[in-house]
């Protein structure tokens, strides 16, 4: 079971003066159970790809198959397939509209025709998952919450749909470091505990390195790298070309290696990097 992207191309505003090809013959498969990061410069086509994953956009050319069903086909199967993919947009807090938090989170399940009790259960679960106490927040207006809380409510709104694949478009944009940390660890937990397949867009390479099994780099609508982050970071030139940066830790270790220290360059946390440097220095001392 997987999401297959087969040779898709997408053109915005075809046949006008503003015609713009956002995707050029992109193919990849997102396997169940993986955590995939999609990275790229502004305008590289990453958000366009994301909108293809649950059928909001249909490719001008090519196919998107979710568990084998073409999303562009008509009929109930395609509708069902689309519901397997939950999509959290950039700045999802801008989509809140209900009077209370509980109603807003329950909006999705209600649309899918889930029963009242089941909806309440899902809302409770989703809110607990994003670390908001159901009994405290259920009757609060979403517009009274802080920015971080609003975002968590909005994400809960998508979680309540119980998607099999969860797609997050720059989930940490505009959050402070602590908020980012919390959100990422929540999302990781979702992957580990609930076996949700994760796809997230980010240009924070530190985040990518920490949680992704796989990194897809886009540049000018084309797929340039598709590899595990550790491997992808070796292709520094291609990553720079795509307007991105490799993590600071990798850069530091690479430079040390060039200076003749024997270190592996694939450390992504400060602690691990420090340990490796310490080891390398010791080793050099012994020699």
């Amino acid at each position, binding site marked *: 079971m997987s999401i297959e992207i087969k040779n898709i191309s997408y053109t*915005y*505003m075809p046949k*006008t*003066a*503003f015609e713009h090809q956002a995707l050029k013959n992109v193919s990849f498969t997102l396997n169940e159970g993986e955590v995939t990061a999609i990275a790229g410069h502004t305008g590289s086509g990453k958000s366009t790809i994301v*909108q293809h994953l*649950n059928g*909001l*956009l249909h490719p001008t050319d090519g196919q998107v198959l979710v568990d084998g069903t073409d999303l562009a086909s008509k009929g109930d199967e395609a509708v069902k397939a689309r*519901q397997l993919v*939950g*999509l959290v*947009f950039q700045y*999802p807090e*801008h*989509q*809140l*509209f209900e009077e209370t938090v509980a109603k807003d989170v329950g*909006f*999705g*399940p209600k*649309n*899918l025709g889930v029963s009242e009790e089941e909806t309440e259960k899902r809302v409770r679960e989703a809110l607990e998952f994003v670390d908001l106490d159901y009994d405290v927040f259920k009757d609060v207006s979403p*517009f009274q919450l802080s920015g971080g809380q609003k975002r968590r409510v909005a994400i809960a*709104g*998508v979680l309540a*749909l119980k998607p099999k694949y969860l797609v997050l478009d720059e989930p940490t944009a505009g959050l402070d470091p602590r908020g980012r940390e919390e959100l990422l660890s929540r999302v990781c937990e979702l992957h580990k505990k609930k076996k949700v397949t994760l796809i997230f867009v980010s240009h924070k390479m530190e985040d990518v390195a920490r949680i992704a099994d796989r990194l897809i780099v886009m540049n000018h609508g084309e797929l340039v790298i598709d590899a595990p982050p550790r491997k992808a970071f070796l292709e520094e030139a291609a990553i720079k070309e795509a307007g991105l940066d490799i993590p600071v830790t990798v850069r530091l270790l690479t430079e040390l290696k060039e200076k003749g220290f024997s270190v592996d360059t694939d450390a992504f946390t400060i602690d691990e990097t420090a340990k490796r440097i310490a080891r390398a220095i010791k080793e050099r001392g012994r020699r």
Partner: protein
Amino acid sequence: MLTDITLGQYFPGTSFLHRMDPRMKISLLFVWIVGIFVFDMPKAYGVFTAATVLLAIISRVPLLTLAKSIKPLWMILVFTLLIHMCGTPGEALFHISVFEFTKEGFMQGFVICLRLALLIFLSSLLTFTTSPLELTDAMESLLSPLKCIGVPAHELAMMMSIALRFVPTLIEETDKIMKAQQSRGVNFESGNVIKRLSSLVPILVPLFISAFRRADELAMAMEARCYRGGEGRTRMKELKVRALDYGACACTVVLMAALVVMKVEGI
């Protein structure tokens, strides 16, 4: 989707018409429109038609795109022609039941339709070759003499340019919110009227909230940069009447003068 809408009909380019001062374009358009109505000799129509075609070619706007601008008024043109054909006495061309369609009527109707079509094409040429912002700038400048009788020219133009500036932003925002709600299972395309109307609530509420937020932020940003109305403001892109504008102006004057002579002399 929604984002496929183009605002206005501006067609970017660098032609002679694109480079002209928008104020001059508006003023000359006005003169031409008056001219089209005043000079009703067949030769004058020939001249105007030829001139319009020439301008269209100079503008480099695809002729097909330009031709489409007449679409909304197509029915009116046909209707005018038919009314004139059966309302004017003269040599009968053909009959449909009691209506008699005459040759004289056809000629008269054709002339009127041609006039209307020329009007539409000329004003479309203006909007095709002038960006909305240039238009508002020109409007401000042209309205500024009326300031002394209390017309807030600058404020009107500022409001218009802000409104224009935010149309694409709000369309984009609407598109995004629609997609977000669609991802949460809203279906905008099916159901009865009430159901469809109620599915607008999840779009309108966030849209209004964001519009107010943007208005608030914009006002704050403008004040932070010491905006306090039009008095004494200079602008980055000063409108300038250049040689090419004087050239266009001179051509128009010569053309109109020639037509006046033709009309008076009865050629």
